[in-house]
């Protein structure tokens, strides 16, 4: 299922003094099975774009095609459920959405809303709880007794249990420790590789972009200023630094090696690529 933005504009609270234009003529395509990263400053419109992906917001002009459905400014709010089932969104700090008495019920909540029977929903809860790395003993516990990181996992399991085709992640690892971050990102990579899930990742961590994404969108002040594969986008390090977006650690390191006189066929973006490039040189000196 592709999601296509065509000339999407969005304004918050139009026709009032609180009016605020956030998106300008956005054209982008989230292809089925791809891993997309959305990067940009805070306030560049990332979260707003994200809410267009499952029609939580409707464009002020232009339209968004989500699979078969086209969302236009005139689309009414009824019958959007099928879209919401296909596109699961994990919001920033998703642990704030937990509310049921037990972890099991909370994870089952989403599927039940989309018409899955009680027993099946609990089965799904069990399956996805295991997937996010918590054992079955957690099913009967109250979500409010868990640590922040565990709550995060439960909340993410709650979205995954809806079995969406497209998974949208808004800084899913913000506030996690390095180990938790790595585990989380590995889970998403698994879903992408094994279950062929389409992923849209909003992040400030360029290392994650370099490691996982196969397409990058760069936003600035509500405009799409650059898009392409990570190789293409990270090629121009100057430009990125100007925009204060940051560069993957490996690329920055390679750049410094280049300044010392070493040259690479193509700029390595991940630690592995960098290591490979260095090994290939077989210990030659500068």
């Amino acid at each position, binding site marked *: 299922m592709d999601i296509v933005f065509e000339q999407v504009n969005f304004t918050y609270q139009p026709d009032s*003094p609180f009016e605020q234009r956030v998106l300008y003529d956005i054209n982008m395509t989230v292809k089925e099975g791809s891993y997309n990263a959305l990067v940009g400053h805070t306030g560049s419109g990332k979260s707003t774009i994200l809410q267009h992906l499952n029609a939580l917001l409707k464009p002020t002009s232009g339209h968004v095609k989500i699979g078969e459905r086209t969302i236009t400014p005139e689309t009414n709010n009824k019958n959007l*459920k099928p879209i*919401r089932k296909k596109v699961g969104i994990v919001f920033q700090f998703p642990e*704030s*959405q937990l*509310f049921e008495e037990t972890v099991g019920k909370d994870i089952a909540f989403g599927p039940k809303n989309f018409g899955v029977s009680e027993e099946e929903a609990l089965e799904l809860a069990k399956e996805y709880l295991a997937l996010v790395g918590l054992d079955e003993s957690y099913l009967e516990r109250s979500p409010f007794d868990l640590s922040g990181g565990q709550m995060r996992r439960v909340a993410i399991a709650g979205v995954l249990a809806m079995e969406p085709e497209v998974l949208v992640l808004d800084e899913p690892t913000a506030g996690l420790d390095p180990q938790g971050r790595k585990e989380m990102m590995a889970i998403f990579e698994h879903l992408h590789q094994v279950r062929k899930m389409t992923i849209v990742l909003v992040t400030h961590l360029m290392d994650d972009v370099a490691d996982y994404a196969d397409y990058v969108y760069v936003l600035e002040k509500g405009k799409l200023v650059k898009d392409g594969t990570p190789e293409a986008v990270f090629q121009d390090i100057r430009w990125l630094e100007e925009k204060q977006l940051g560069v993957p650690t490996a690329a920055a390191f390679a750049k410094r090696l280049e300044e010392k006189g070493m040259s690479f066929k193509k700029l390595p973006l991940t630690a592995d690529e960098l290591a490979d490039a260095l090994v290939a040189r077989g210990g030659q000196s500068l």
Partner: protein
Amino acid sequence: MMNKLILGRYIPGDSLIHRLDPRAKLLTSFYFIGIIFFANNWQSYLLLGVFTLFCVYLSKVDFGFFLRGVRPLLWLILFTVALQILFTSGGRVYWEWGVFQVTEFGVQNGIFIFCRFVLIIFMSTLLTLTTPPLELSDAIEFILRPLNAIHFPVHEISLMLSIALRFVPTLMDETEKIMNAQRARGVDFSEGNLIQKMKAVIPLLIPLFVSSFNRADDLATAMEARGYQGGEGRTKYRVLHWHQKDTIAICVYAFLTFALIYLRD
């Protein structure tokens, strides 16, 4: 949802009304509600109407805002006006049907009540649109201060008020966020019958309560860590200044009162 709520919102600006001392604005707004009951003929209503519109003009806030402030109360106004028109006797009778009658006095009263409602709403909207919430709570603290004599916890109340006001926008954002998250999980907040709608609110309310309590806990700890021990011996950073224009505003109101007393029957 939140966008429609005009009453209680502040619009930054730099007009004469914006710059008035919040105490003057608060007192005069309440006073206005008091003196509007003095008006009992069309001359006095005209005076108050012109005065209100002049204040609105001075505030430089878009007039549409004031109209939108009236909208949520429109049904109450219409209901009251209709009751007045249908059940007041006296004067010439225009129309009669059973217990209902439309009379000269009834129509007159209806119009007066309508004006009264609209003017009061305009004035209170003007107060909130031109005064930042924090200034408002400072003003309330100042005005309540004499109550200290009867051991009324003025400091605590005003602290509660400023914290509450500070967190209104935060909680609104939070509500919006949680609503979105639950909508993304298939909750429909606007569909179904009353019971279904009430049930749909649970996934919104529980997280909101939890986060409010967490926030309160964190805030209390942070306040203690910064040396807060209650009102005793605390100084004030935000000091209110009474200027000449505030005295003038009070004088204008005094003059208005005399004019009203002179004009009324």
